[in-house]
Protein backbone atom coordinates (compact mmCIF):
# COMPACT_ATOMS: atom_id res chain seq x y z
CA UNK A 1 0.00 0.00 0.00
CA UNK A 2 1.39 3.43 -0.95
CA UNK A 3 0.11 6.85 0.06
CA UNK A 4 -0.97 7.27 -3.57
CA UNK A 5 -3.48 4.45 -3.05
CA UNK A 6 -7.07 5.54 -2.68
CA UNK A 7 -8.32 1.97 -2.46
CA UNK A 8 -6.39 -1.17 -1.65
CA UNK A 9 -8.52 -4.27 -1.92
CA UNK A 10 -7.18 -7.65 -0.86
CA UNK A 11 -8.95 -11.00 -1.29
CA UNK A 12 -12.39 -9.45 -1.30
CA UNK A 13 -15.29 -11.92 -1.38
CA UNK A 14 -19.01 -11.26 -1.23
CA UNK A 15 -21.57 -13.99 -1.03
CA UNK A 16 -25.30 -14.16 -0.63
CA UNK A 17 -26.83 -17.12 1.24
CA UNK A 18 -27.05 -19.39 -1.77
CA UNK A 19 -24.72 -17.68 -4.13
CA UNK A 20 -21.11 -16.48 -4.31
CA UNK A 21 -21.13 -13.12 -6.05
CA UNK A 22 -17.34 -12.98 -6.32
CA UNK A 23 -14.37 -14.39 -4.48
CA UNK A 24 -10.81 -13.31 -3.72
CA UNK A 25 -10.63 -10.11 -5.72
CA UNK A 26 -7.59 -7.90 -5.26
CA UNK A 27 -6.84 -4.56 -6.87
CA UNK A 28 -5.92 -1.01 -6.06
CA UNK A 29 -7.11 2.39 -7.22
CA UNK A 30 -4.58 5.21 -7.25
CA UNK A 31 -5.02 8.89 -6.62
CA UNK A 32 -6.08 10.67 -9.82
CA UNK A 33 -7.37 7.53 -11.52
CA UNK A 34 -10.51 7.69 -13.62
CA UNK A 35 -11.57 4.08 -13.34
CA UNK A 36 -14.47 2.77 -15.39
CA UNK A 37 -15.93 -0.44 -13.99
CA UNK A 38 -17.77 -2.07 -16.85
CA UNK A 39 -19.49 -5.38 -17.33
CA UNK A 40 -22.81 -6.91 -18.32
CA UNK A 41 -26.01 -6.61 -16.27
CA UNK A 42 -25.94 -8.87 -13.22
CA UNK A 43 -22.15 -9.12 -13.23
CA UNK A 44 -21.84 -7.82 -9.67
CA UNK A 45 -20.56 -4.30 -10.43
CA UNK A 46 -22.93 -2.55 -8.04
CA UNK A 47 -22.33 -5.25 -5.41
CA UNK A 48 -18.60 -4.62 -5.76
CA UNK A 49 -19.09 -0.89 -5.24
CA UNK A 50 -21.38 -1.39 -2.26
CA UNK A 51 -18.91 -3.73 -0.61
CA UNK A 52 -16.16 -1.16 -1.20
CA UNK A 53 -18.25 1.29 0.82
CA UNK A 54 -18.94 -1.23 3.59
CA UNK A 55 -22.62 -1.32 2.68
CA UNK A 56 -22.60 -5.10 2.34
CA UNK A 57 -21.04 -7.84 4.43
CA UNK A 58 -17.77 -9.09 2.93
CA UNK A 59 -14.62 -10.99 3.72
CA UNK A 60 -11.12 -9.77 2.90
CA UNK A 61 -9.49 -6.40 3.42
CA UNK A 62 -10.54 -3.02 2.08
CA UNK A 63 -8.44 0.03 2.82
CA UNK A 64 -9.77 3.45 1.85
CA UNK A 65 -7.21 6.26 2.03
CA UNK A 66 -5.08 3.85 4.06
CA UNK A 67 -7.77 3.16 6.68
CA UNK A 68 -9.71 -0.06 7.04
CA UNK A 69 -13.16 0.70 5.62
CA UNK A 70 -14.73 -0.80 8.76
CA UNK A 71 -13.25 1.99 10.86
CA UNK A 72 -13.23 4.69 8.18
CA UNK A 73 -14.98 7.87 9.30
CA UNK A 74 -13.76 10.62 6.99
CA UNK A 75 -16.79 10.36 4.68
CA UNK A 76 -16.45 13.96 3.62
CA UNK A 77 -13.73 12.75 1.22
CA UNK A 78 -16.19 10.48 -0.64
CA UNK A 79 -19.04 11.36 -2.98
CA UNK A 80 -21.30 8.43 -3.79
CA UNK A 81 -24.18 8.14 -6.16
CA UNK A 82 -25.99 4.81 -6.18
CA UNK A 83 -27.86 3.34 -9.12
CA UNK A 84 -30.82 5.74 -9.31
CA UNK A 85 -33.68 3.58 -10.33
CA UNK A 86 -32.93 0.93 -7.77
CA UNK A 87 -33.71 3.19 -4.86
CA UNK A 88 -35.12 6.57 -5.68
CA UNK A 89 -38.56 7.36 -4.39
CA UNK A 90 -39.77 10.06 -6.77
CA UNK A 91 -42.59 11.07 -4.43
CA UNK A 92 -40.27 11.84 -1.54
CA UNK A 93 -41.31 15.23 -0.14
CA UNK A 94 -38.15 17.24 -0.58
CA UNK A 95 -36.91 20.20 -2.56
CA UNK A 96 -33.74 20.00 -4.63
CA UNK A 97 -31.95 22.01 -1.95
CA UNK A 98 -33.05 19.58 0.78
CA UNK A 99 -31.89 16.54 -1.20
CA UNK A 100 -28.47 18.05 -1.91
CA UNK A 101 -28.16 19.12 1.72
CA UNK A 102 -28.61 15.49 2.75
CA UNK A 103 -25.27 14.72 1.13
CA UNK A 104 -23.33 17.08 3.39
CA UNK A 105 -21.13 14.98 5.58
CA UNK A 106 -21.42 15.10 9.36
CA UNK A 107 -17.89 16.42 9.70
CA UNK A 108 -18.11 19.07 6.98
CA UNK A 109 -18.26 22.37 8.86
CA UNK A 110 -18.46 24.70 5.85
CA UNK A 111 -21.62 26.84 5.51
CA UNK A 112 -24.33 24.61 4.06
CA UNK A 113 -25.82 27.18 1.68
CA UNK A 114 -22.46 27.85 0.03
CA UNK A 115 -21.78 24.12 -0.42
CA UNK A 116 -25.25 23.54 -1.91
CA UNK A 117 -25.03 26.51 -4.30
CA UNK A 118 -21.60 25.43 -5.51
CA UNK A 119 -22.71 21.84 -6.13
CA UNK A 120 -25.85 22.93 -7.99
CA UNK A 121 -23.94 25.42 -10.13
CA UNK A 122 -21.29 22.84 -11.00
CA UNK A 123 -23.85 20.86 -12.99
CA UNK A 124 -25.96 23.80 -14.02
CA UNK A 125 -29.13 23.15 -12.05
CA UNK A 126 -29.05 26.08 -9.65
CA UNK A 127 -32.34 27.35 -11.06
CA UNK A 128 -34.06 24.18 -9.77
CA UNK A 129 -32.92 24.78 -6.18
CA UNK A 130 -36.36 25.34 -4.62
CA UNK A 131 -38.33 22.96 -6.84
CA UNK A 132 -39.83 19.81 -5.35
CA UNK A 133 -37.81 16.87 -6.60
CA UNK A 134 -40.99 14.98 -7.48
CA UNK A 135 -41.84 17.54 -10.15
CA UNK A 136 -38.55 17.17 -12.06
CA UNK A 137 -37.89 15.01 -15.09
CA UNK A 138 -35.84 11.80 -14.73
CA UNK A 139 -32.75 13.48 -16.14
CA UNK A 140 -33.08 16.46 -13.80
CA UNK A 141 -33.54 14.15 -10.80
CA UNK A 142 -30.40 12.31 -11.85
CA UNK A 143 -28.47 15.58 -11.92
CA UNK A 144 -29.74 16.46 -8.46
CA UNK A 145 -28.29 13.21 -7.19
CA UNK A 146 -25.01 13.97 -8.92
CA UNK A 147 -24.98 17.39 -7.19
CA UNK A 148 -25.60 15.57 -3.95
CA UNK A 149 -22.54 13.42 -4.54
CA UNK A 150 -20.45 16.52 -5.29
CA UNK A 151 -21.61 18.65 -2.37
CA UNK A 152 -18.66 17.89 -0.07
CA UNK A 153 -16.18 18.59 -2.88
CA UNK A 154 -14.93 15.02 -2.39
CA UNK A 155 -11.52 13.65 -3.35
CA UNK A 156 -13.10 10.41 -4.53
CA UNK A 157 -16.29 10.16 -6.55
CA UNK A 158 -18.03 6.81 -6.85
CA UNK A 159 -20.84 6.88 -9.39
CA UNK A 160 -23.01 3.88 -10.19
CA UNK A 161 -24.61 4.20 -13.63
CA UNK A 162 -24.91 8.00 -13.33
CA UNK A 163 -25.90 8.66 -16.93
CA UNK A 164 -28.75 6.18 -17.34
CA UNK A 165 -31.55 8.77 -17.50
CA UNK A 166 -29.59 11.55 -19.16
CA UNK A 167 -30.09 12.83 -22.71
CA UNK A 168 -27.03 12.38 -24.97
CA UNK A 169 -26.19 16.12 -24.81
CA UNK A 170 -26.41 16.25 -21.05
CA UNK A 171 -24.49 12.99 -20.80
CA UNK A 172 -21.70 14.48 -22.85
CA UNK A 173 -21.55 17.65 -20.74
CA UNK A 174 -21.67 15.53 -17.59
CA UNK A 175 -18.65 13.55 -18.76
CA UNK A 176 -16.86 16.80 -19.56
CA UNK A 177 -17.48 17.92 -15.97
CA UNK A 178 -16.08 14.61 -14.70
CA UNK A 179 -13.13 14.92 -17.04
CA UNK A 180 -12.39 18.41 -15.74
CA UNK A 181 -12.62 17.20 -12.14
CA UNK A 182 -10.28 14.34 -12.87
CA UNK A 183 -7.71 16.05 -15.04
CA UNK A 184 -7.67 19.54 -13.51
CA UNK A 185 -8.81 19.06 -9.92
CA UNK A 186 -7.07 15.69 -9.64
CA UNK A 187 -10.12 13.96 -8.20
CA UNK A 188 -10.25 10.20 -8.29
CA UNK A 189 -13.31 8.87 -10.08
CA UNK A 190 -14.78 5.38 -10.06
CA UNK A 191 -17.62 5.05 -12.52
CA UNK A 192 -19.79 1.98 -12.94
CA UNK A 193 -21.39 1.56 -16.33
CA UNK A 194 -22.27 -1.12 -18.82
CA UNK A 195 -21.37 1.19 -21.71
CA UNK A 196 -17.81 0.07 -22.33
CA UNK A 197 -17.34 1.86 -25.64
CA UNK A 198 -18.53 5.24 -24.42
CA UNK A 199 -16.39 5.56 -21.28
CA UNK A 200 -13.20 4.46 -23.01
CA UNK A 201 -12.36 7.99 -24.10
CA UNK A 202 -12.64 9.41 -20.58
CA UNK A 203 -11.31 6.71 -18.29
CA UNK A 204 -7.64 6.30 -17.56
CA UNK A 205 -8.26 2.75 -16.38
CA UNK A 206 -10.79 0.13 -17.26
CA UNK A 207 -11.96 -2.78 -15.14
CA UNK A 208 -14.03 -5.36 -16.97
CA UNK A 209 -15.95 -7.14 -14.24
CA UNK A 210 -18.05 -10.24 -14.58
CA UNK A 211 -18.13 -11.81 -11.11
CA UNK A 212 -14.37 -11.59 -11.31
CA UNK A 213 -11.86 -9.11 -12.67
CA UNK A 214 -11.57 -10.15 -16.30
CA UNK A 215 -9.44 -7.18 -17.28
CA UNK A 216 -7.80 -4.31 -15.41
CA UNK A 217 -5.69 -1.80 -17.30
CA UNK A 218 -5.90 1.07 -19.76
CA UNK A 219 -8.43 1.16 -22.60
CA UNK A 220 -5.54 1.00 -25.09
CA UNK A 221 -4.27 -2.16 -23.39
CA UNK A 222 -7.79 -3.53 -23.51
CA UNK A 223 -8.01 -2.96 -27.25
CA UNK A 224 -4.62 -4.52 -27.83
CA UNK A 225 -5.08 -7.43 -25.45
CA UNK A 226 -5.14 -10.82 -27.12
CA UNK A 227 -6.74 -12.40 -24.08
CA UNK A 228 -9.61 -9.90 -24.34
CA UNK A 229 -9.88 -10.74 -28.01
CA UNK A 230 -10.24 -14.38 -27.01
CA UNK A 231 -12.72 -13.49 -24.26
CA UNK A 232 -15.05 -11.25 -26.28
CA UNK A 233 -14.28 -12.51 -29.75
CA UNK A 234 -12.12 -10.31 -31.95
CA UNK A 235 -15.08 -8.78 -33.77
CA UNK A 236 -16.69 -7.61 -30.56
CA UNK A 237 -13.40 -6.28 -29.25
CA UNK A 238 -12.86 -4.46 -32.52
CA UNK A 239 -16.37 -3.04 -32.39
CA UNK A 240 -15.94 -1.81 -28.81
CA UNK A 241 -12.62 -0.20 -29.61
CA UNK A 242 -13.91 1.33 -32.82
CA UNK A 243 -16.87 2.79 -30.97
CA UNK A 244 -14.33 4.56 -28.83
CA UNK A 245 -12.52 5.77 -31.94
CA UNK A 246 -15.80 7.00 -33.41
CA UNK A 247 -16.47 8.98 -30.23
CA UNK A 248 -12.95 10.37 -30.38
CA UNK A 249 -13.33 11.33 -34.00
CA UNK A 250 -16.60 13.11 -33.29
CA UNK A 251 -15.01 14.81 -30.35
CA UNK A 252 -11.96 15.90 -32.36
CA UNK A 253 -14.16 17.27 -35.13
CA UNK A 254 -16.17 19.22 -32.58
CA UNK A 255 -12.99 20.60 -31.08
CA UNK A 256 -11.50 21.61 -34.44
Amino acid sequence: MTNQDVYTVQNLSVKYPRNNIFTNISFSVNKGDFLAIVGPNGSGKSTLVKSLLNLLPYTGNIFLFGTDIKTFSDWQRIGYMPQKFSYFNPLFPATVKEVVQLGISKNNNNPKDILIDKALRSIDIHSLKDKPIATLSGGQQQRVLIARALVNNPELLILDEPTVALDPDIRESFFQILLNMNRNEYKTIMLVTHDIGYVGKYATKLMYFDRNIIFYGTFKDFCESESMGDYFGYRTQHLICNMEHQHLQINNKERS
Partner: protein
Amino acid sequence: MDFFELFKYQFIIRAIYTGIFVAGTCSLLGIFLVLRRLSLIGDGLAHITFGGVAIGILTKHEPFYIAMPISVLSSLGILKLSQKAKIYGDAAIGIVSAVGIAFGVIISNIAGGFNIDLFSYLFGNILAISKTDMYISLILSLIVCGIIIKNFDDFFSIAFDEELAQVTGINTKKLNYLLSILTAVTVVMSMRVVGIMLVSALLILPAASALQIFHSFKKVAFFSVFFSVLSVLTGILISLFFNLPSGATIVFVNFIIFLFCLFLKHLESARR
Protein backbone atom coordinates in the same frame (compact mmCIF):
# COMPACT_ATOMS: atom_id res chain seq x y z
CA MET B 1 -73.00 23.20 27.32
CA ASP B 2 -71.28 26.59 26.85
CA PHE B 3 -67.97 26.40 24.95
CA PHE B 4 -65.93 28.40 27.49
CA GLU B 5 -67.47 26.57 30.38
CA LEU B 6 -65.69 23.45 29.15
CA PHE B 7 -62.34 24.82 30.25
CA LYS B 8 -63.46 24.97 33.87
CA TYR B 9 -63.32 21.20 34.04
CA GLN B 10 -59.97 19.75 35.02
CA PHE B 11 -60.54 16.54 33.09
CA ILE B 12 -60.97 18.54 29.87
CA ILE B 13 -57.85 20.58 30.50
CA ARG B 14 -55.93 17.35 31.15
CA ALA B 15 -57.32 15.83 27.95
CA ILE B 16 -56.31 18.89 25.92
CA TYR B 17 -52.75 19.01 27.27
CA THR B 18 -52.24 15.28 26.85
CA GLY B 19 -53.85 15.33 23.41
CA ILE B 20 -51.64 18.14 22.11
CA PHE B 21 -48.43 16.52 23.29
CA VAL B 22 -49.27 12.95 22.26
CA ALA B 23 -50.66 14.04 18.88
CA GLY B 24 -47.60 16.18 18.15
CA THR B 25 -45.24 13.34 19.03
CA CYS B 26 -47.14 10.73 17.01
CA SER B 27 -47.29 12.89 13.91
CA LEU B 28 -43.62 13.87 14.06
CA LEU B 29 -42.59 10.24 14.39
CA GLY B 30 -45.20 9.15 11.87
CA ILE B 31 -43.55 11.05 8.99
CA PHE B 32 -40.46 8.88 9.20
CA LEU B 33 -42.50 5.70 9.56
CA VAL B 34 -44.71 6.52 6.57
CA LEU B 35 -41.77 7.52 4.37
CA ARG B 36 -39.89 4.36 5.29
CA ARG B 37 -42.99 2.29 4.58
CA LEU B 38 -43.15 1.19 8.19
CA SER B 39 -46.65 2.57 8.75
CA LEU B 40 -47.95 -0.71 10.08
CA ILE B 41 -45.36 -0.97 12.81
CA GLY B 42 -47.65 1.16 15.01
CA ASP B 43 -50.46 -1.28 14.49
CA GLY B 44 -48.22 -4.26 15.20
CA LEU B 45 -46.81 -2.74 18.37
CA ALA B 46 -50.28 -1.73 19.52
CA HIS B 47 -51.35 -5.37 19.30
CA ILE B 48 -48.31 -6.36 21.34
CA THR B 49 -49.25 -3.67 23.83
CA PHE B 50 -52.62 -5.35 24.16
CA GLY B 51 -50.82 -8.45 25.47
CA GLY B 52 -48.90 -6.30 27.96
CA VAL B 53 -52.06 -4.55 29.13
CA ALA B 54 -53.78 -7.92 29.63
CA ILE B 55 -50.86 -9.12 31.79
CA GLY B 56 -51.03 -5.91 33.83
CA ILE B 57 -54.75 -6.32 34.44
CA LEU B 58 -54.33 -10.02 35.29
CA THR B 59 -51.49 -9.40 37.75
CA LYS B 60 -53.13 -6.22 39.10
CA HIS B 61 -50.20 -4.05 38.11
CA GLU B 62 -50.48 -0.76 36.25
CA PRO B 63 -50.78 -1.96 32.59
CA PHE B 64 -48.68 0.96 31.34
CA TYR B 65 -45.57 -0.27 33.16
CA ILE B 66 -45.97 -3.82 31.88
CA ALA B 67 -46.84 -2.81 28.32
CA MET B 68 -43.91 -0.41 27.94
CA PRO B 69 -41.00 -2.90 28.22
CA ILE B 70 -42.92 -5.52 26.24
CA SER B 71 -43.56 -3.06 23.44
CA VAL B 72 -39.94 -1.82 23.39
CA LEU B 73 -38.54 -5.37 23.31
CA SER B 74 -41.00 -6.33 20.58
CA SER B 75 -40.06 -3.37 18.40
CA LEU B 76 -36.43 -4.42 18.65
CA GLY B 77 -37.54 -7.99 17.90
CA ILE B 78 -39.29 -6.84 14.72
CA LEU B 79 -36.15 -5.03 13.62
CA LYS B 80 -33.95 -8.06 14.34
CA LEU B 81 -36.38 -10.43 12.68
CA SER B 82 -36.43 -8.42 9.47
CA GLN B 83 -32.63 -8.03 9.49
CA LYS B 84 -31.41 -11.43 10.61
CA ALA B 85 -34.09 -13.77 9.38
CA LYS B 86 -34.24 -11.87 6.06
CA ILE B 87 -37.99 -11.54 6.44
CA TYR B 88 -39.74 -8.59 4.82
CA GLY B 89 -40.47 -5.83 7.35
CA ASP B 90 -44.25 -6.08 6.93
CA ALA B 91 -44.15 -9.85 7.41
CA ALA B 92 -42.09 -9.42 10.60
CA ILE B 93 -44.64 -6.87 11.86
CA GLY B 94 -47.47 -9.26 10.97
CA ILE B 95 -45.90 -12.16 12.85
CA VAL B 96 -45.15 -10.20 16.03
CA SER B 97 -48.52 -8.47 15.87
CA ALA B 98 -50.54 -11.68 15.52
CA VAL B 99 -48.60 -13.37 18.31
CA GLY B 100 -49.10 -10.32 20.53
CA ILE B 101 -52.85 -10.20 20.11
CA ALA B 102 -53.19 -13.98 20.46
CA PHE B 103 -51.20 -13.74 23.68
CA GLY B 104 -53.44 -10.91 24.90
CA VAL B 105 -56.61 -12.86 24.17
CA ILE B 106 -55.31 -15.93 26.05
CA ILE B 107 -54.25 -13.84 29.05
CA SER B 108 -57.56 -11.95 29.14
CA ASN B 109 -59.39 -15.26 28.93
CA ILE B 110 -57.40 -16.54 31.91
CA ALA B 111 -58.26 -13.29 33.70
CA GLY B 112 -61.95 -14.07 33.24
CA GLY B 113 -62.68 -12.48 29.87
CA PHE B 114 -62.67 -8.91 28.59
CA ASN B 115 -63.62 -6.40 31.24
CA ILE B 116 -64.20 -2.65 31.30
CA ASP B 117 -60.55 -1.93 32.07
CA LEU B 118 -59.36 -3.80 29.03
CA PHE B 119 -61.95 -2.10 26.82
CA SER B 120 -60.81 1.33 27.97
CA TYR B 121 -57.31 0.45 26.75
CA LEU B 122 -58.58 -1.05 23.50
CA PHE B 123 -60.59 2.02 22.48
CA GLY B 124 -59.05 4.74 24.64
CA ASN B 125 -60.68 7.53 26.56
CA ILE B 126 -58.68 10.72 26.67
CA LEU B 127 -61.35 12.35 28.83
CA ALA B 128 -60.65 9.85 31.61
CA ILE B 129 -56.95 10.55 31.85
CA SER B 130 -55.59 10.96 35.36
CA LYS B 131 -53.15 13.63 36.49
CA THR B 132 -50.37 11.03 36.70
CA ASP B 133 -51.12 9.74 33.18
CA MET B 134 -51.02 13.30 31.92
CA TYR B 135 -47.63 14.02 33.48
CA ILE B 136 -46.20 10.73 32.19
CA SER B 137 -47.47 11.55 28.69
CA LEU B 138 -46.05 15.08 28.81
CA ILE B 139 -42.63 13.92 29.99
CA LEU B 140 -42.42 11.06 27.50
CA SER B 141 -43.61 13.32 24.67
CA LEU B 142 -40.94 15.86 25.46
CA ILE B 143 -38.26 13.16 25.55
CA VAL B 144 -39.40 11.52 22.29
CA CYS B 145 -39.80 14.87 20.47
CA GLY B 146 -36.46 16.09 21.82
CA ILE B 147 -34.69 13.00 20.47
CA ILE B 148 -36.46 13.28 17.09
CA ILE B 149 -35.64 16.98 16.72
CA LYS B 150 -32.01 16.40 17.72
CA ASN B 151 -31.65 13.67 15.08
CA PHE B 152 -34.12 15.17 12.60
CA ASP B 153 -31.65 15.58 9.70
CA ASP B 154 -30.27 12.08 10.19
CA PHE B 155 -33.73 10.48 10.30
CA PHE B 156 -34.62 12.50 7.21
CA SER B 157 -31.49 11.29 5.45
CA ILE B 158 -32.20 7.65 6.34
CA ALA B 159 -35.80 8.01 5.15
CA PHE B 160 -34.49 9.28 1.80
CA ASP B 161 -31.97 6.50 1.40
CA GLU B 162 -30.32 4.42 4.08
CA GLU B 163 -27.19 3.56 2.09
CA LEU B 164 -26.55 7.16 1.14
CA ALA B 165 -27.03 8.16 4.76
CA GLN B 166 -24.42 5.61 5.79
CA VAL B 167 -21.91 6.98 3.28
CA THR B 168 -22.28 10.46 4.78
CA GLY B 169 -21.19 9.06 8.13
CA ILE B 170 -24.56 8.54 9.79
CA ASN B 171 -24.75 5.58 12.16
CA THR B 172 -27.88 4.13 10.55
CA LYS B 173 -27.88 0.99 12.67
CA LYS B 174 -28.01 2.96 15.91
CA LEU B 175 -30.70 5.29 14.57
CA ASN B 176 -32.85 2.39 13.36
CA TYR B 177 -32.83 0.97 16.87
CA LEU B 178 -33.59 4.41 18.26
CA LEU B 179 -36.55 4.87 15.89
CA SER B 180 -37.92 1.45 16.93
CA ILE B 181 -37.66 2.29 20.62
CA LEU B 182 -39.25 5.72 20.13
CA THR B 183 -42.12 4.12 18.20
CA ALA B 184 -42.73 1.58 20.95
CA VAL B 185 -42.72 4.27 23.65
CA THR B 186 -45.06 6.47 21.60
CA VAL B 187 -47.51 3.65 20.94
CA VAL B 188 -47.80 2.78 24.63
CA MET B 189 -48.05 6.44 25.56
CA SER B 190 -50.85 6.98 23.01
CA MET B 191 -53.02 4.02 23.96
CA ARG B 192 -54.90 6.09 26.54
CA VAL B 193 -55.70 8.74 23.95
CA VAL B 194 -57.16 6.78 21.05
CA GLY B 195 -56.83 3.22 22.26
CA ILE B 196 -54.78 0.25 21.17
CA MET B 197 -56.99 -0.44 18.17
CA LEU B 198 -56.69 3.07 16.76
CA VAL B 199 -53.23 4.19 17.75
CA SER B 200 -51.70 3.62 14.33
CA ALA B 201 -54.13 6.20 12.91
CA LEU B 202 -52.40 8.91 14.97
CA LEU B 203 -49.07 7.82 13.53
CA ILE B 204 -50.12 7.44 9.90
CA LEU B 205 -52.98 9.83 9.05
CA PRO B 206 -51.44 13.25 9.83
CA ALA B 207 -48.26 12.42 7.90
CA ALA B 208 -50.25 10.89 5.03
CA SER B 209 -52.41 14.05 4.89
CA ALA B 210 -49.47 16.46 4.84
CA LEU B 211 -47.70 14.37 2.20
CA GLN B 212 -50.63 14.92 -0.17
CA ILE B 213 -50.12 18.64 -0.49
CA PHE B 214 -46.61 19.58 0.58
CA HIS B 215 -43.39 18.77 -1.24
CA SER B 216 -40.84 20.12 1.20
CA PHE B 217 -39.83 17.96 4.11
CA LYS B 218 -39.97 20.80 6.64
CA LYS B 219 -43.46 21.79 5.53
CA VAL B 220 -44.60 18.17 5.73
CA ALA B 221 -43.25 17.96 9.28
CA PHE B 222 -44.89 21.22 10.36
CA PHE B 223 -48.30 20.50 8.85
CA SER B 224 -48.30 16.89 9.99
CA VAL B 225 -48.00 18.12 13.57
CA PHE B 226 -50.57 20.85 12.93
CA PHE B 227 -53.14 18.44 11.46
CA SER B 228 -52.62 16.00 14.29
CA VAL B 229 -53.08 18.55 17.06
CA LEU B 230 -56.07 20.05 15.25
CA SER B 231 -57.71 16.64 14.94
CA VAL B 232 -57.21 15.81 18.61
CA LEU B 233 -58.61 19.15 19.81
CA THR B 234 -61.55 19.04 17.39
CA GLY B 235 -62.13 15.38 18.21
CA ILE B 236 -62.27 16.10 21.95
CA LEU B 237 -64.79 18.92 21.44
CA ILE B 238 -67.01 16.90 19.10
CA SER B 239 -66.97 13.92 21.41
CA LEU B 240 -67.98 16.17 24.33
CA PHE B 241 -70.80 17.94 22.50
CA PHE B 242 -72.22 14.87 20.81
CA ASN B 243 -71.37 12.35 23.49
CA LEU B 244 -69.28 10.20 21.17
CA PRO B 245 -66.27 8.00 22.02
CA SER B 246 -63.26 10.34 21.98
CA GLY B 247 -60.67 7.96 20.41
CA ALA B 248 -62.84 7.04 17.45
CA THR B 249 -63.92 10.67 16.95
CA ILE B 250 -60.28 11.83 16.85
CA VAL B 251 -59.51 9.21 14.20
CA PHE B 252 -62.52 10.29 12.14
CA VAL B 253 -61.51 13.96 12.27
CA ASN B 254 -58.06 12.87 11.11
CA PHE B 255 -59.64 11.00 8.24
CA ILE B 256 -61.72 14.03 7.22
CA ILE B 257 -58.52 16.14 7.14
CA PHE B 258 -56.93 13.45 5.00
CA LEU B 259 -59.87 13.55 2.55
CA PHE B 260 -59.64 17.34 2.44
CA CYS B 261 -55.92 17.12 1.60
CA LEU B 262 -56.65 14.56 -1.10
CA PHE B 263 -59.21 16.98 -2.53
CA LEU B 264 -56.69 19.84 -2.50
CA LYS B 265 -54.15 17.62 -4.23
CA HIS B 266 -56.72 16.75 -6.86
CA LEU B 267 -57.46 20.45 -7.40
CA GLU B 268 -53.75 21.19 -7.72
CA SER B 269 -53.25 18.44 -10.32
CA ALA B 270 -56.32 19.62 -12.25
CA ARG B 271 -54.93 23.15 -12.33
CA ARG B 272 -51.63 21.96 -13.91
